[in-house]
């Protein structure tokens, strides 16, 4: 392919050098890095909260706190920050902003200023959320914030919760509009919709879901604050309101939200699989349609989070069925993932290990969603550790491994260097083992009846399954902690001492690897890219090369 830009990472400027250029940046790559920093910081904080929770839960009785409010603060922070501060910004912020524009051959996002505003809104939201740890009257109503608890004084600062969600929602909506326009209008010359990388498709679809559903979440939490502070009565049964309205509105967004997380990391797994196996994505077009199918399929299943909330029986049964139907598009994606390996030439690179771990846990987590989806089975396991284990498998293990896999995968573009392969693999495998030791025992504890959001479980003291599961789970959390440290070491080492990367270390066909390894400025490509109709990001056999349209230099 030849070096196109002549900007190998040879000490030439890669990132902005001045504080002003960093802070006031309008460039999507720098903004993407801001998203990444924000989300990794969130992960660290929320992960440390998880460590505290695990230590507390390791044995019966108060270990490090006897105060329910303190535990509930940790748990609220853990759930909310992991989802809203880590997963969504890492995927729809970092991946969407950093990688997608380069992957589709664009020079930037469609609205660079809106993009900058979105990232600062995100940071505002994260700062607000972290303030919860230090303010008096902290909010402890969990990430779901159900009224009437959350509209009572016992919940603490409800306004903080509503506003964090609204600010992050604004950030998401502006980001989503921006990305949708970018994908729609700024694909490079000649790139048709069906020549887009899977990551671009998945992020695009996830953003469409955001556009449709985030506003409903924002409205639902807005009404919480209106109720609590201004005396409105939307959720107050005494003045004709309904406590269940909140749950319907909340889950109307927050179920699709799990696909907002799922799809981009699925896209990353596709990306890494295809590049590692040097193979076409299996039945690419059908896969794209399966991705799009998540928009309608995810929209009419929210009641499965409220199977035991006193809603009418017919609604439970109906949405139990619609929930099961999600196994169709999901199954097609899984099929396509394994099909991508078929007759491939798989190289087990560092990112591939992370992606493999993500993929295995994805199947685990997806399949454990099935019992939850059966309304009558859910009567026995709702709000128990079974559910907790299910969503940690999909989100905290699969999602997190794919997200960090993406960081390892695009590390050469970010820094011009490659992380040490051994450290990458070691941290990946440790993380995988650690999280399995955390979550597998808890599944069995859940079957025995262990409910969620408990700081203590003395009522189950004579149940050895639960007691042992909690113990082993805490051990697993230490292993995970170690894995995260190893990963951070791998990144820092890679950043400072890593091997200089060639332009296309993974041998991918996607456009981002036709630009210099470390892009040294704004605009991404030396001149506009053009691809022909036969070009495909996953064609490894006879792909026509992308060309560069020469424009008269006038700078």
């Amino acid at each position, binding site marked *: 392919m030849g070096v196109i830009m002549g900007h190998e990472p040879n000490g030439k400027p890669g990132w902005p050098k001045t504080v002003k250029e960093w802070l006031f940046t309008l460039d999507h790559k720098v903004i993407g890095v801001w998203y990444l920093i924000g989300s990794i910081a969130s992960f660290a904080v929320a992960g440390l909260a998880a460590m505290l929770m695990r230590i507390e839960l390791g044995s019966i009785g108060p270990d490090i706190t006897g105060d329910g409010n303190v535990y509930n603060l940790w748990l609220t922070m853990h759930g909310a920050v992991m989802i809203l501060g880590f997963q969504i910004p890492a995927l729809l912020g970092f991946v969407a902003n950093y990688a997608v524009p380069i992957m589709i051959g664009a020079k930037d996002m469609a609205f660079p200023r809106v993009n900058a505003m979105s990232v600062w809104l995100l940071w505002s939201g994260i700062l607000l959320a972290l303030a919860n740890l230090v303010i008096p009257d902290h909010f402890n109503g969990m990430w779901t914030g159900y009224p009437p608890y959350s509209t009572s004084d016992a919940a603490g600062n409800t306004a903080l919760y509503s506003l964090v969600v609204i600010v992050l929602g604004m950030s998401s909506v502006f980001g989503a509009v921006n990305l949708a326009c970018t994908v729609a209008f700024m694909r490079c010359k000649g790139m048709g919709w069906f020549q887009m990388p899977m990551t671009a498709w998945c992020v695009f679809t996830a953003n469409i879901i955001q556009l449709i559903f985030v506003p409903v979440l924002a409205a639902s939490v807005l009404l919480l604050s209106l109720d609590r502070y201004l005396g409105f009565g939307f959720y107050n049964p005494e003045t004709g309101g309904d406590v269940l309205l909140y749950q319907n509105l909340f889950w109307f967004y927050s179920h699709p939200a799990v696909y907002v997380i799922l799809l981009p990391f699925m896209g990353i797994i596709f990306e890494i699989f295809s590049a590692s196996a040097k193979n076409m994505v299996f039945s690419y077009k059908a896969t794209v349609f399966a991705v799009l199918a998540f928009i309608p399929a995810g929209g009419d299943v929210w009641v499965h989070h409220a199977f035991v909330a006193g809603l009418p029986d017919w609604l439970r049964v109906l949405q139990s069925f619609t929930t099961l*139907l999600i196994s169709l598009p999901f*199954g097609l994606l899984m099929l396509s993932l394994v099909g991508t*390996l078929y007759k491939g030439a798989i190289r087990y690179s560092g990112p591939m290990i992370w992606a493999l771990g993500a993929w295995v846990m994805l199947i685990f987590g997806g399949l454990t969603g099935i019992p939850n989806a059966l309304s009558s089975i859910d009567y026995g396991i709702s709000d128990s550790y079974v559910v907790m284990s299910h969503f940690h498998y999909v989100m905290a293990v699969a999602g997190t491994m794919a997200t960090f896999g993406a960081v390892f995968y695009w590390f050469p573009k970010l820094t011009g260097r490659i992380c040490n392969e051994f450290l990458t693999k070691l941290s990946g495998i440790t993380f995988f083992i650690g999280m399995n030791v955390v979550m597998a025992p808890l599944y069995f504890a859940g079957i025995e009846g262990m409910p969620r959001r408990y700081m203590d479980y003395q009522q189950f003291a004579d149940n050895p399954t639960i007691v042992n599961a909690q113990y082993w789970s805490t051990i697993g959390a230490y292993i995970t902690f170690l894995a995260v440290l190893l990963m951070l070491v791998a990144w820092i080492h890679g950043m400072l001492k890593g091997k200089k990367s060639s332009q296309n270390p993974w041998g991918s066909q996607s456009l981002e690897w036709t630009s210099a390894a470390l892009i040294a400025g704004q605009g991404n490509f030396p001149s506009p890219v053009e691809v022909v109709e036969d070009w495909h990001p996953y064609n490894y056999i006879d792909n026509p090369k992308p060309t560069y349209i020469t424009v008269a230099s006038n700078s």
Partner: protein
Amino acid sequence: MKIKSLSYKALGALLALPLIPTLAYAFQMEIATKNNYEGLTPQAHWNEMWSEVMWDITIIGAIYFAIALFFLFRYRRTEHNQVGKSPKLSAQAIIGWVVLPCMLFLGDDLFLFVKAFDLHNQMREVPAHAQTIKVTASMWNWNYDYGNGVDTDNELRVPVGKPVVFRMTSDDVIHSHYLNGYHVTEDVMPGRVTWEWIMPVKVGESVITCREYCGANHSRMYGKLIVMKQANYDAWMVSALADAKAESGHRIASTTVGKAIKNIAASKINKGQEG
């Protein structure tokens, strides 16, 4: 070309075979009616269904991983410049790879759904002769009202062999009444009456816990379900009735631990209203 797409079709047709018995089973299954559960309690039915679901997803997972592991091993990159050689799929092949798997997945979904629906019907239809107990939740207490002036806190006594239905509401925030071993959970909230029912068949004790987050002492909001022989139950009820008479007028108010919620006026909620 032709032969290739034909062979895909043939392969697809084979894949559709398992669908036939699945669908046939799903549609022929008799939807059980209310009282047609000779000896099969809801909890036993639930356990049965649970192990079926577990088998189902384990088998799916195992098949998938068998294939995946084989591919991961078989298609390792052995030479430096090797690239993947997956066949270019014809349009029919792509459709085949979409429609047939979807049919299979749908078949399994239907199979599970119909069985779960059957269980749902059993769990959501109260036998006519069930005894009613009113449950009132508050932070952080379970109050059981037997309807005859007797009420208990965090201790529920029922006679063995008789179905019991709980009519539940809450004084303050949302709680969730979970009876361990009976696999029933139902949220309890202000402004509504929700219900669940159980069929106790074994004498003994089990744990009742709260399953919806309700504040600082959520994890301490638990009680005991005591299933008693009919005779013991009757004896207990007689003495409890006598106690209740003695304390007439002094109906023991639900003990409320910790901070009370100020902007939810508990008293206004019609406590005993049914349905």
